[in-house]
């Protein structure tokens, strides 16, 4: 919310400052409460949009996907199960899956019609070379503060949309190593944000 244009700031301040606990929020969303949905958007659209931009490396596509994400959140809210995890985890994975679908269909369209997993992975890789090079959009990359192996994991698995198996093939290492490095990367990341 740092870059909010000055003219809307005033109106934002006038909006009622409602704070929901996660339980309240999920309950209200289940009741299809518009205020709760609005709150959800105000609080999480930035995080989801940031993730989407890093995944597709295209602001317009990311905006379309963000729209689809929130529409899907609203439509399929009843399928959210709080026992399976946090609301945000559920939301960001909706966004990530939409972005992965977009990338795969784009890779598919761009001539890689062979569904062989290797080709499919390398197609994603080629069309997403920029994933590892997102500085050009001018985003501050927190991920760059991680060790290179950890950066690689986050970029491939989280932003690149690779499965762990695909990442193992891409990096030429055992699946077990990928899994371990994933954990290591996340531990490092948790220290970083503390």
């Amino acid at each position: 919310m740092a870059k909010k244009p000055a003219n809307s700031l005033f109106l934002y301040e006038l909006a009622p400052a409602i704070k929901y606990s996660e339980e309240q929020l999920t309950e209200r969303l289940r009741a299809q409460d518009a205020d709760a949905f609005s709150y959800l958007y105000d609080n999480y659209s930035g995080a989801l949009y940031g993730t989407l931009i890093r995944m597709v490396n295209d602001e317009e596509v990311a905006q379309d996907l963000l729209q689809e994400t929130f529409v899907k959140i609203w439509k399929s809210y009843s399928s959210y199960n709080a026992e399976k995890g946090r609301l945000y985890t559920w939301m960001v994975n909706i966004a990530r899956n939409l972005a992965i679908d977009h990338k795969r269909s784009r890779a598919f369209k761009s001539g890689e019609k062979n569904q062989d997993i290797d080709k499919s992975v390398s197609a994603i890789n080629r069309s997403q070379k920029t994933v590892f090079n997102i500085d050009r959009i001018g985003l501050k990359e927190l991920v760059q503060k991680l060790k290179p192996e950890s950066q690689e994991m986050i970029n491939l698995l989280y932003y690149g949309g690779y499965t762990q198996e695909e990442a193992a093939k891409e990096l030429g290492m055992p699946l077990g190593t990928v899994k371990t490095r994933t954990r290591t990367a996340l531990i490092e990341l948790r220290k970083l944000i503390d």
Partner: protein
Amino acid sequence: MDSKTFIESGALEAYVMGLATEQEAKLVMEMAAQYAEVKTELLAIEDAMRVFDGKNAVTPPVELKAKILARIGSSEFRVSGSASSSTVGNAESETQPKVRRLNDAANAAVAKQSPFFKYAAAVALLLLIVSAYYNYSLSNKLDETTKQVAEIQAQNDQLNSTMASADSSVKKMIAEIMLLKTPAMKSVELKGMEVAPEAKAMVYANTQSGEVYLELVNLPPAPDGMQYQFWGIVDGKPVDAGMIPLDGNLSGIHPMKTVTNSTAYAISLEPKGGSQQPQGKIYVLGNV
């Protein structure tokens, strides 16, 4: 599998990042349900990823929210919203603001987030006012025009009737001219006598058929109880050729009684209804 080994396997991280297969996810759920430390670790990872994404947040364009709310508000909300919202409303209506319909939120978002919509609304209002003014002035002009059309219609009607009468006059004149142009037709001027020197009449007589037409040019009005009578003179004797209407109006050239071989024509003033032989004074007279 013990909880420590499970946590260190990286399965929880994979699960949170959406990388777990269905089987792996099922196992994570089972382990989290069974071991509190697994559940705690899972939540910690989830929170970490949320915070990480939050730190990487990019504010989407302001108009996006209104777009999304508009998309959602047009379909889903009304169908399923009212029934379930009431339970929440009852439970929390005292402490929380009332549950709003999504359309309201969409509208609010439009008003709140996008100055464009405000300008658009202002422009629309301005256009409406301008349009209303034009409607008003056009309506006035229409009234005026309707009046003018009615006036022109009246003028047109008058012209039509004038035309019709002119037309009948022309037809009559043409008929008269045709009559006068008949080769056997002879015109005779009847001149005023002593009683009325200014009096004058014209006679048009067909010398072959004996048809006679009289045109009064100037004749003083007949006194009460008296009437002008028209005469032909045949072999020196007056022959009745018809009465002239009391008002003295023959309307142009008027056919009279047929008189053959008349050498002269005259009009005398007779008692009303006429006489067998002229008794009154002769007013006009003319020889063929």
